[in-house]
């Protein structure tokens, strides 16, 4: 096995036994990025020298016996998480030359463990999109089929993990942006409970929905990353001060009596690809064979999820993105002579079409005369969607569903049709609206060889049952061991 193919936990064992050094591991990854990323297009910035320095520091720590699960482990970071001294573009012309002078909370956490940051990976501009096609920097290709999208918005994260261009990645999820690319690239991605991981240093899209989480090669690695990044942070006032369990402790065998909820509304969804439907149904059978009990549940407001989300998220985005005014950081239109003209010139040239579309939509639904009909109504429906989950979780421990209605589509296929693109987020949006955790893990392949993901959702701060379910499923199946052509 090549070093780049290692999982975090296998690499950790080898580092601990001093069979490999972090420098060797980091060099292997940098060489692989150099050789292969031209065809994948995952990385926006490669922090080679810094990575080598971090690897050397990690090796020194290991030599002194100071090793934790992420010490010396090379990771990639979605390009909207601030990294001190490493350009953070948000895949936007607006921030093309932005170099943060501080680290996000999650980056501080990774550095505390002496993890190695290889570089920053591609995404849809400001995390708005489901295909990474909205990046103003480059296109990212799905490692399983280069003519297809990797999913989005954390497409660079998912592709870099799937193509062994890092051992793990941090992404962010506002409406499915970790889970959907994880599904399309055949890796494990979890959106934690809202408030579980600090958003300090995460460039904001929709603040009541955004959450950082890991994309990894298997479930154990996901638990290791969650251990590292979770926890209260006084710099994020929505961060929640509850104890963080050791997530790896739930990665053990035994599912007896676990109740898995199957939402009747999800499987009657018209746009659901039969291959995805079958893969998810087979996954339920696998879990039943392992001792789980499946129960039918109902999430009656499912059909209103997309409508509620595409009022709330753009509304919050229009407010958050008001800060890009050409004054404090980022792009400025230098030709304009008055302040208002400068604002307009800066924002019109700095933002791409999808970002503009959501700013206009968000400004419209918040504007005088429309606020009650749109924003207030959507927030009420959000309350009902959350209530649906609370009721459902009285009958079950986790909820299972597809992640995306179809496997990855081809580049350019939906680029001109925003509503169709939005409608394909149907299975992932509700977890963000309700603030509950959700994971995508590999559960099958289409006939054409594209990965299919299973979504496992849990109640607030109940990631443990997700890990337990996912770990047992993974142990009983081989999907996570299959890799795209190298």
């Amino acid at each position, binding site marked *: 096995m090549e070093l780049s193919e290692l999982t975090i936990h296998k690499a950790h064992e080898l580092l601990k036994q001093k069979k490999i050094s972090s420098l060797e591991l980091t060099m292997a990854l940098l060489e692989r990025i150099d050789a292969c990323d031209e065809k994948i297009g995952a990385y926006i910035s490669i922090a080679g020298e810094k990575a080598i320095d971090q690897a050397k520091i990690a090796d020194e720590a290991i030599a002194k016996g100071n090793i934790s699960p992420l010490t010396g482990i090379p990771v990639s970071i979605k390009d909207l998480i601030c990294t001190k001294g490493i350009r953070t573009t948000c895949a936007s012309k607006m921030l093309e030359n932005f170099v943060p002078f501080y680290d996000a909370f999650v980056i501080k956490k990774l550095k505390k463990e002496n993890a190695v940051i290889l570089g920053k990976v591609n995404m849809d501009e400001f995390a708005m999109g489901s295909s990474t096609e909205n990046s103003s920097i480059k296109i990212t290709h799905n490692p399983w089929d280069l003519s297809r999208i990797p999913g989005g918005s954390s497409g660079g994260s998912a592709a870099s993990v799937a193509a062994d261009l890092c051992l793990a990645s941090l992404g962010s999820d506002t409406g499915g942006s970790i889970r959907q690319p994880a599904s399309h690239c055949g890796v494990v991605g979890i959106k934690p409970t809202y408030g579980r991981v600090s958003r300090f240093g995460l460039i904001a899209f929709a603040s009541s929905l955004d959450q950082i989480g890991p994309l990894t090669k298997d479930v154990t690695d996901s638990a290791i990353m969650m251990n590292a990044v979770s926890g209260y942070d006084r710099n994020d006032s929505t961060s*929640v001060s509850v104890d963080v369990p050791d997530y790896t402790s739930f990665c053990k065998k035994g599912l007896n009596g676990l109740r898995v909820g199957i939402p009747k509304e999800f499987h009657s969804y018209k746009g659901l690809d039969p291959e995805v439907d079958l893969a998810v149904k087979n996954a339920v059978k696998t879990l039943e064979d392992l001792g789980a009990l499946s129960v039918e549940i109902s999430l009656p407001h499912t059909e209103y999820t997309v409508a509620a989300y595409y009022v709330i998220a753009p509304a919050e985005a*229009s407010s958050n993105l008001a800060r890009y005014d050409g004054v404090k*950081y980022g792009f400025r239109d230098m030709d304009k002579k008055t302040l208002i003209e400068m604002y307009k010139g800066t924002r019109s040239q700095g933002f791409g079409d999808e970002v503009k579309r959501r700013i*206009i939509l968000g400004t419209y639904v918040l504007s005088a005369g429309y606020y009650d009909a749109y924003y207030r109504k959507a*927030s009420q*429906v959000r309350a009902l969607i959350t209530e649906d989950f609370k009721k459902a979780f009285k009958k079950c421990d986790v909820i299972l569903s597809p992640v995306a209605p179809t496997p990855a589509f081809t580049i350019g296929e939906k680029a001109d049709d925003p509503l169709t693109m939005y409608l394909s987020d149907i299975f992932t949006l509700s977890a963000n609206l309700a*603030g509950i955790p959700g994971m995508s893990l590999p559960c099958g392949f289409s006939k054409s060889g594209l990965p299919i993901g299973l979504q496992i959702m849990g109640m607030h701060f109940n990631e443990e049952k997700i890990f337990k379910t996912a770990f047992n499923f993974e142990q009983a199946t081989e999907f996570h061991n299959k890799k795209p052509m190298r």
Partner: protein
Amino acid sequence: MKITHDEVMYVASLARLDLHEDDVEMFAEQIGKILEHVDTLGNVNTDGVEPATHAISLSNAFRNDDKKEHANREAALSNAPEQEDGAFIVPKIIE
């Protein structure tokens, strides 16, 4: 159409965006379709439902008003498109 050409122009100007004529047409059509879908929310009975503004119930996060270190001025200005004498420079506001 659900949202008119003029409404798109007006809202864009509120959001400090200048749009090309072609883009106004495109956005009006696309946003119109999205708003038609959003209108399905009207089918939901929300009488007496308290709007959810956050995913989880939160109370105000207070901290003590203690003196602590903050970013230095040089760092805070390091990404400014234009700066001088420790300040952000903007186009002239008052004639």
